[in-house]
């Protein structure tokens, strides 16, 4: 099982060299960014089964804080990244404690409500730029501003962060926490009877997920150099994380990567082909994916692949 990972790692390292076009360079950087976000969501949504539609909060906080550091104190946006993570973790703990008492759809609905509350708050708060949003340094003052014309440096930054998220997820899968989260997802009542403190472990998952989502949001803001409430706190940010993880296979390591690798190019091409109308097409695509997944394959593409491999294995043995 190591070779596929080595090949994938090698391909990811050389990918920007094969795309000499800024359009494609930007697209693959976005693929990695969304792979980071979907993988971060996967920790709490996929492994613990707590389908949060409120992760835009952490993405938005992560995006805003570095640009706030620049706007108000002319500091290096990079300094805002740990602050953004700390704020996101705090919000995750505060939001998580009451909402994790809710089950299933009620939890998801509560997260939507809290995320919308944040969007409205930021839209009307002058200190954070209100509806206009915030901008970063137009031209990099020092190397620490991370301001590049090309998307390639951002691609490699996202690659490093993706490796971090995957390493954490891999480690988590093998620890008590990974087993407990999967048990809670499968049956909270039975898990608790085995000594699993479900609220505590769900909270740990939410905190880890919020930290990585915030980091992704910060890097997105640094790359783009501009954020506004709708683009980072909007519900579509959360929906995209959910759809990517679910399409690939929520609760699996590679599922979110597969989802991001498929959906971001699709979305990018739809936007470039159909212009403004392309975004509407993206929503139709997302709706279709939700319907198909919930009706036919909640396990996502990874599950289909696993079943196909089992089938070919059986066929090979002549069963």
């Amino acid at each position, binding site marked *: 099982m190591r070779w596929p990972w080595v090949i994938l790692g090698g391909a990811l390292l050389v990918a920007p060299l094969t795309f000499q076009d800024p359009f494609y360079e930007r697209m693959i950087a976005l693929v990695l960014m969304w792979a980071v976000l979907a993988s971060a969501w996967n920790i709490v949504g996929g492994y613990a089964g707590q389908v949060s539609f409120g992760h835009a909060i952490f993405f938005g906080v992560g995006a805003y804080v570095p640009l706030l550091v620049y706007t108000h104190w002319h500091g290096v946006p990079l300094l805002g990244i740990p602050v953004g993570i700390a704020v996101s973790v705090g919000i995750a703990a505060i939001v998580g404690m009451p909402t994790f008492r809710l089950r299933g759809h009620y939890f998801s609905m509560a997260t939507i409500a809290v995320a919308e509350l944040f969007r409205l708050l930021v839209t009307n708060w002058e200190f954070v730029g209100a509806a206009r949003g915030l901008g970063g340094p137009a031209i990099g003052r020092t190397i620490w501003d991370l301001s590049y014309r090309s998307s390639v440096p951002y691609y490699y930054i996202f690659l490093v962060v993706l490796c971090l998220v995957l390493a954490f997820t891999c480690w988590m899968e093998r620890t008590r926490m990974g087993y407990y989260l999967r048990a809670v997802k*499968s049956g909270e*009542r039975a898990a608790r*009877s*085995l*000594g699993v403190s479900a609220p505590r472990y769900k909270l740990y998952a939410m905190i880890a997920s919020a930290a990585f989502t915030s980091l992704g949001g910060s890097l997105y803001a640094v790359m783009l150099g501009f954020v506004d409430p709708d683009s980072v706190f909007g519900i579509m940010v959360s929906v995209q994380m959910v759809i990517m993880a679910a399409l690939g296979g929520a609760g699996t390591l590679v599922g979110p990567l597969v989802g991001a690798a498929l959906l971001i190019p699709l979305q990018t091409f739809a936007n470039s082909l159909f212009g403004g109308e392309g975004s509407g097409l993206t929503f139709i695509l997302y709706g279709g994916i939700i319907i198909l997944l919930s009706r036919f394959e909640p396990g996502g593409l990874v599950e289909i692949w696993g079943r196909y491999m089992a089938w070919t294995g059986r066929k090979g043995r002549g069963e």
Partner: protein
Amino acid sequence: MSSTTLLKAQKVSKAFQGFWAVMGADFELSPGEIVGIIGPNGAGKSTFFNCLSGEMVPTSGSVIFRDTNVTRATPEQHARLGIGRTYQVPATFEDMTILDNVMVGAFLRRAHQADARKEAMQVLDFTGLGAQADHRAKSLGTPGRKRLEIARALATKPRLLLLDEALSGLTPLEIQQAIGLVRQIHQTGVTLVIVEHIMEVVLTLAQRVIVFNHGQIIATGRPEEIVNDPKVVDAYLGAGRKSRRFSARSGPNGRGA
């Protein structure tokens, strides 16, 4: 509380919006006992059982386990103190392997994956599921799932194991095998409380039987005393059919093996 008492329930009552499912149940359990709880459908035995396992908080009364008041303790606190349980409808973690299911239980006393796996494999071998360790739980039939639930609870190293109809839905042969397993568990020093519809199981396994009817304990005693107790016969068969004695294989409401 006497040093020979493992668990003591005092005047336990549970009401659901004015309906008293359990009323003033008193119950004591000594270490090493096997106690059966029987009663017709809706008698309150499962509610009482849930109050003992922490699944429900009694409306009044108290539950003491090894000198610790667990009346309001959460199910996970019950597990940590050494009370394991199974469910009437098996609640296995379907998409996890059989080994992983049991490892979830083993992680309660083992912090590291390798130790938890070793512990879980021992329990799986003990319960006869070792050969299927890598299969997903959903690949098991009802007997396998019930066995897996027992294995999972055993992995938490309980002092007291509460079995909620762990043998219902099994064939006569499977029941015999399951009775053998319960006996083996008992021999390891685990105290057992069994809620069961199948009289054969209760009469074969239990050293003491408690009978519930209309939310109250109407009889308690050795199995052979219980089957001839007029109040029990009334509860199960109705006053007009006192002359009939229910056989070992029959259960209330026609249910049984």
